[in-house]
């Protein structure tokens, strides 16, 4: 009895420095969701809104914020992109090193012209990307997101379900953060600034 109790005490005494060491060594916590060990680095083959074929290599050296949406989106997309625009506004000079990639999950309706018009409303850091079904599915599968189409109404409009998250990649193209629409603004600004610096 006393023997097992003293053994327990010894284990507990050992645990204290180990826990302290673990917490002391770790970097300060990110305020949005850290996905460093969960998701793969940035890779895709798509067409940019200017019509040129682009891969992820093109954006190495930049902090990339990637979002999946569609230009007919009534709520989540404009709100999210608007929020990102505000984030970039608060970053001042650091914003130059950030690119926002808007990948359309509705390539049928979103042609290059529609994409150009849509992203230009938010700023020059915003780039629209589109691809055929296969290229798009390769990318969405890689980041474990999906999309789906609702039934079209009388005038041919249909709703599209898509991911509401923004994926952030560092300058090396490694996946770092997942930004949710519920994350407070100042948390997003602080984390993106930390990625840039």
């Amino acid at each position, binding site marked *: 009895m006393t023997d097992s109790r003293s053994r327990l005490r010894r284990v507990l005494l050992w645990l204290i420095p180990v826990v302290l060491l673990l917490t002391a060594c770790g970097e300060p916590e990110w305020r949005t*969701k850290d*996905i460093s*060990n*969960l*998701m793969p680095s940035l890779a895709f083959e798509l067409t940019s809104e200017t019509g040129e074929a682009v891969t992820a290599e093109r954006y190495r050296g930049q902090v990339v914020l990637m979002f*999946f949406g569609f230009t007919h989106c009534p709520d989540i997309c404009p709100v999210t992109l608007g929020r990102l625009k505000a984030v970039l506004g608060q970053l001042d000079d650091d914003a130059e090193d950030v690119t926002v990639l808007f990948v359309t999950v509705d390539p049928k309706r979103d042609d290059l012209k529609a994409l150009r018009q849509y992203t230009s409303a938010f700023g020059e850091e915003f780039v629209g990307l589109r691809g055929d079904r296969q290229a798009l599915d390769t990318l*969405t*599968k890689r980041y*474990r*997101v*999906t*999309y*789906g*189409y*609702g039934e079209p109404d009388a005038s041919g409009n249909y*709703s*599209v*379900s*898509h*991911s*509401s*998250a923004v994926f952030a990649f560092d300058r090396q193209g490694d996946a770092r953060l*997942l930004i*949710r629409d*519920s994350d407070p603004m100042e948390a997003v600004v602080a984390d993106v600034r930390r990625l840039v610096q």
Partner: protein
Amino acid sequence: MTEYLYYLLPWEFGLSWLVFCVGGLWLYYRGLVRRRARGIAPGVWRPLAFTVGMVGIYAVSQTHYDYLAQYMFFTHRIQHLVMHHAAPFLIALSVPWPVLASGLPEWRVPAGVSKPAMALLRGLYRVLQNPVLAPVLFVGLIYFWLIPSVHFDAMLSRWLYDVMNWSMVIDGILFWWLMLDPVTTKGGLARLGFGARLVILWLVMVPQIALGAYIALSDRVLFDVYAVCGRAWPLAPLTDQQIGGLVTWIPAAMMSVLGILVLIGYWLAGRGDDRAPAAGLTTTEGA
């Protein structure tokens, strides 16, 4: 036709699932043929139960169903119902171990490797099948993977997703085998008695009902990963969660009731002690 074929192909190919399902069925049918030649093969029902169980695991992991399971909460709950409850239940009910052993190829493993490996496995098995730990693990794993932050990571990461699903299948087979093993003594050694199993089956039912009801009756979205990653089709998040909660609640608890019925059946048939097999029931099994 090709479209149907597309839905039967894996959404994400996983070698471990293929090896487990195809390898398991191959071993089983090889063993079945050999046992039939010696006149000691089980009848029709046990091979059928084993086959349906294995095909079930394959269907929810290596067809397009896996896509639905990744991008909708209630379809994910159905996937786990198959992986952790229904399929392992059928596999355990089929008592496949002697048939699988007969199907093993005659490879010679050096005793220096096989002995410590078997000792390790036996020790691990004894710990996991402890009558207190096994039900705690069975319910604990359901709760653990449904902690919202853990669930979020598991749905985001390919390898965590695989770990989650494998933990369901392995724990499911272990648990249901502990519950549905038709004998209570083997070679003079006591296994878990029917009475204790009835208590365990009832005990695991209660927290599953509680969790399922909590999820189904919650008026806010608990698992936001499906909004973050997108849904398979535009279904209202709360509706998705309510159906998912019901799946966690009712059919999962029903499996305990089915298990209790099977045990009562064994009991009435006078089974339990392998030294005194009841007439009529064990004639086709052999040792």
